[in-house]
């Protein structure tokens, strides 16, 4: 199938970079900066040191203007880098939103009074449509708003929303009635009942989310920011305390001068968790963007985070664990009948059968018989009917039929045929293996049994194995009988299954799991899934699902591929992991910054403290400047990590923890020692401070 996705927006595209650059400058506005209190304080620090620098130029400061000037420059750069990270991540979303917005333009709609009165049309703007309004949309016209088809069926091109160019059928009644505003009808005419307020359509919500415009902070983000602000307050108290303490020390030591405002500001900025504070917004937006690149739209940021916490996955068997339909996997003759006869009869009986099962039988047989798939001349297909419950073909006066065992036996016995003795054993054999037996007969002779089997999606077993390793329970839900369900469950390696389940049972199951403290994710598409979707913590609706299902869900999969749930879990975890890793890194960095700044700042008062200058930094000024520069540079260096996310590994939590602790904790302590030393070496060759 031809597949056109959104063109991948590259983060380093010149246009995006330019836009992000100017946007970052605009964000220096203090009113906008207050969204990120840590960076707001850094910016205030920058203003303070700039004032000291200007005073120095006027000869009113004891410090060399080159030093205060460079410190100010790098403090401004720190804020700029932080803004840039956010702008860059927003920019990628905005580029995508622009293409969505083209589909959302205001269009005219043909409103009806009743579904019958197709002649009584009033042309209105799509912005004036309200839920409950009926509109008629003809070929080549754009659907003016979200709704459901109440009359007719049409071929719809949904590329504007899904990026998928192959048209889909939307028809009244059933599970394929939902239509999305902005998509285009290709053929025939439908009447649609509008279900969404203008401005709150699926497309609107999608644009909001990818743009990050209406981005509300998620609970975890709020908690983390609170922690970061607390740390910042503590460090603010530290430098405020350092002023009188250094005054006192200088006075009693009789040498040296108290720490200047520039040095105190530099120390504060280095200690404050600027790395994580700068990258925090970008991490969330970029996570959303990664989902979108997989054609998944999260309608709330909360849902993605919840996905990281999910410990129970409810999965429909069909479509998620197995391929859509059962397929022929074996043909077993009975009563010593030749296998060729059975294969031919099975082939002929299925030629007129358009169901996936029928097609799979034809395919299976033609692989053995190597004949082209074509209906023989003069053949008369006998379609499946509810009364006979068999289907087949009449060809050359002979009747080839296939169907459930009891139906075929009845049909054969009516014609005076006998039932082979080994039939029952073979039929139950297949059934007890979880398969579906189809008996084939030619006129009054039973030839054998076709084994129809559920085929697992490739790679699904491995994914379940990975999920188990990270502590997620998978529960399969199927309408099949217990035996069939158990076989598939064992084959796929799910932890649990519910057989003969009604859709309503999902709701009960989710509530049970939640009552035990679990976070539950599920996918759904049908209207009867809607209550369960509304209850689940992470509810993924297929884009080809019904409108109620899509409204109850908090994540929409545009590809309608239920296995995507696993990707969502992964990205949810990645977002949290990236935050945790950068927080640890940021705090661990402080150790080396103390070792860079404190000896440099205090050596005037207590010369013996130069013993703490373990990095051997050249002069006090370059030492402090190097720490500030490292602190600033680490932000753009980590932007790629923030945008891509820390790599997710399907390993148990304890191993993952140790792993990340070594990389970001230990690495966070060691890296800046090296970085600051290198910057100092470079700096001391360039400037003389």
């Amino acid at each position, binding site marked *: 199938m031809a597949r056109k996705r959104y063109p991948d927006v590259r983060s380093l595209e010149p246009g995006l970079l330019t836009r992000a650059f100017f946007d970052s400058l605009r964000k220096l506005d203090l009113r906008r900066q207050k969204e990120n209190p840590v960076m707001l304080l850094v910016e205030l620090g920058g203003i303070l040191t700039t004032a000291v620098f200007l005073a120095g130029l006027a000869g009113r400061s004891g410090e060399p203007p080159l030093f205060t000037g460079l410190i100010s420059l790098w403090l401004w750069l720190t804020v700029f880098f932080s803004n840039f990270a956010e702008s860059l991540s927003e920019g990628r979303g905005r580029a995508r939103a622009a293409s969505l917005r083209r589909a959302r333009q205001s269009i005219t709609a043909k409103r009806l009074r009743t579904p019958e009165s197709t002649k009584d049309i009033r042309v209105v703007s799509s912005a004036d449509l309200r839920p409950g309004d009926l509109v008629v949309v003809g070929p080549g016209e754009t659907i003016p708003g979200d709704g459901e088809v109440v009359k007719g069926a049409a071929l719809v091109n949904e590329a504007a929303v899904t990026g998928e160019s192959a048209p889909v059928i939307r028809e009244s009644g059933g599970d394929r009635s939902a239509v999305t505003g902005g998509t285009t009808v290709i053929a025939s005419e439908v009447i649609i009942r509008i279900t969404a307020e203008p401005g709150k359509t699926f497309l609107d919500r999608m644009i909001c989310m990818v743009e990050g415009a209406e981005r509300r902070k998620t609970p975890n983000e709020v908690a983390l920011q609170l922690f970061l602000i607390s740390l910042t307050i503590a460090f603010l108290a530290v430098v405020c305390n350092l002023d009188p303490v250094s005054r006192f020390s200088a006075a009693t030591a009789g040498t040296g001068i108290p720490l200047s405002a520039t040095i105190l500001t530099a120390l504060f900025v280095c200690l404050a968790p600027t790395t994580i504070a700068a990258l925090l917004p970008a991490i969330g937006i970029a996570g959303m963007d990664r989902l979108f690149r997989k054609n998944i739209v999260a309608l709330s940021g909360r849902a993605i985070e919840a996905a990281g916490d999910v410990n129970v996955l409810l999965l429909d068997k069909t479509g998620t664990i197995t391929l859509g339909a059962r397929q022929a996997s074996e043909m077993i003759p009975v009563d010593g009948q030749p296998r060729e006869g059975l294969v031919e009869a099975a082939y002929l009986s299925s030629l007129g059968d358009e169901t996936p099962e029928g097609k799979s039988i034809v395919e299976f047989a033609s692989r053995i018989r190597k004949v082209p798939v074509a209906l023989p001349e003069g053949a008369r297909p006998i379609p499946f009917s509810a009364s006979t419950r068999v289907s087949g073909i009449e060809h050359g006066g002979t009747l080839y039929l296939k169907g459930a065992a009891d139906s075929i036996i009845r049909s054969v016995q009516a014609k005076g045929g006998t039932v082979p003795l080994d039939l029952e054993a073979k039929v139950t054999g297949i059934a007890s293996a979880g398969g579906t037996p189809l008996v084939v007969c030619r006129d009054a002779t039973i030839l054998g049994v076709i084994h129809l089997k559920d085929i697992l999606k490739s790679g699904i077993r491995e994914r379940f194995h990975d999920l188990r390793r990270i502590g997620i329970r998978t529960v399969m839900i199927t309408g099949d009988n217990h035996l069939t369900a158990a076989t598939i469950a064992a084959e796929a390696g799910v932890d649990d299954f519910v057989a003969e389940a009604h859709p309503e049972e999902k709701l009960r199951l989710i509530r049970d799991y939640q009552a035990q403290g679990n976070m539950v994710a599920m996918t759904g598409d049908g209207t009867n899934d809607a209550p369960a979707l509304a209850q689940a913590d992470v509810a993924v609706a297929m884009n080809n699902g019904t409108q109620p299902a899509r409204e109850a869900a908090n994540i929409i999969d545009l590809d309608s591929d239920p296995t995507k749930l696993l990707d969502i879990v992964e990205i949810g975890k990645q977002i949290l992991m990236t935050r945790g890793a950068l927080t640890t890194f940021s705090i661990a960095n402080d150790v080396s910054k103390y070792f860079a700044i404190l000896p440099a700042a205090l050596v005037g008062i207590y010369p013996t403290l130069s013993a703490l200058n373990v990095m051997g930094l050249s002069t006090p000024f370059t030492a402090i400047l190097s720490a500030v520069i490292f602190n600033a540079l680490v932000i753009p260096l980590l932007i790629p990590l923030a945008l891509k996310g820390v790599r997710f590994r399907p390993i148990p*939590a304890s191993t993952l923890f140790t792993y990340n602790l070594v990389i970001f904790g230990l690495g966070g302590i060691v890296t800046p020692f090296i970085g600051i030393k290198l910057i100092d070496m470079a700096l001391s060759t360039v400037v003389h401070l």
Partner: protein
Amino acid sequence: MAIPDPLMDGATVLGFLLLVSISAVLFGRYLARVYSGGLSRGPFGKIEAGIYHTIGTEPDQESGWRQYAKDMLLFNGIGFGVLLVILLIQGFLPLNPMGVPGFEFHHALNIAVSFVTNTNWQVYSGETAASYLTQMAGFTVQNFLSAATGISVAIAVMRGITRRTTDRIGNFWVDLTRTVLYVLLPVAFIAALVLASQGVIQNLDPYVETSGGTAGPRLIAMGPVASQEAIKELGTNGGGFFNANAAHPFENPGHLTNLFEIFLILLIPASLPFTFGELSGRRREGIAIFAVMLALFLLAFAGLYAAEWYGNPTLARTGVSGIPMEGKEVRFGLGGTALYAVATTATSCGSVNAMHDSLTPLAGMVPLLLILLGEAVFGGAGSGFYTYLAFIVVAVFIAGLMIGRTPEYLGKKMERREITMAVVVILVPTLLVLLFTAVALLIPAGAQAMLNPGPHGLSELIYAYTSMANNNGSAFAGFDATTPFFTLTGAFVMAVGRFVPAVAMLALAGALAEKKTVPSSPGTLPTATPAFVLWMIFVIVIVGVLTFFPLLTMGPVAEHFRMIGGI
């Protein structure tokens, strides 16, 4: 005695800590029984029931965290009022053989707050300023009650973590009564007898006049020491009967009493992790908590011992041999001094058997650091445990993120409210220290209080506010804290440093109790593994020390480098 034997001292300390550990496991289980009501059916159950009847509480009626906190504050408020009155009018009260007058108001206020908050920061000399009635009915009673308050809050916090979907975390009056009746009274009673048998005095006699030999006539202070000594150590109160505290031979006569007193200091704080293990049904969690505390304790001991052993090279060059003994008691030696200093500052006890002021700069930094860590290493009776839990919340918060899940501890999700409360517990004492040392340096009274110049004077000031904010009560002697500025700001710091974290922890417990418990899976971060133990140590040290790095550099560290530089 002036030449210590590190091998011998090391072996003694390890053996001693083994004994503490075994006792803690057993005593921890006993505590779990006490608070599950296991002893209320025993012989003392009648007394317990009688007490509930008198104060009119229904023992089965538990309350939410707000009520629990209100009861706790009310009870401590009354205790404060009573003690304040006793201190002001002790001159008119009986049991005052030496006829000491009442305290000045700002002193009385400071002392009352200090005993109610389990700090026992003493701005007075016991033997010259307090009557026997004040010592017994005032100080000893508060020693029991402030310790019981801390333990009760810790037990309520444990309930909050282990319960699910309820808003009840216990009945303060029940926890308090059980603590006093089944824990503090019996142990203190036995301990007092043991101490008395080893030479600690216990009488109500007037002070004894001696000829004093060549030094001239001397007045030897007397008093009911053993009974107060026992609870002062057991309840991690630390307020000495005498000014010299446990360095005084009537409080701590010899090696054996020294070890016994250290044992009493550590007993309850070391047992509570095991109590938690029992009450939560996860013994491994209790062991992990104990392991972190023990590891930090051993590190501190080794550091202090090594720094003292290293001594002062400038003095060594002048031909003085042996370790510095000024301010230490020869009868305890370096081992007994170091162990006491670490135990009393790791917990929030604050009684001392040597002058911490006299330790070499880096050795003196160890007690300071231990107090700065905010009581997370064993800590005060009860308060240590709940402070440690605040560190756990922060540690699992970051660690949980690193594995990609909303952080959780024992199945409880750590969200905004929990983080807020944990940060309050950790940050409030820190901010108090930073704020008030700065203020003290900005006004003339601050510098005047320091009896030593330069970095050592700064260490004294930092130590004073750190000790008060974390309810330790020990002091870097050589600091005059009796002026109104210090008594009043000190009272404020002690009260805020005690009750704000306690109430925040109760709020945290209330929030946790309401939550569901997430079943654990391979995706859950295990918190009883060596990796997590290391992580906890890292978090406690980093979060505890990071904010004090500059202060420590300009105090003890600068002093150290000046010392080796020979300045």
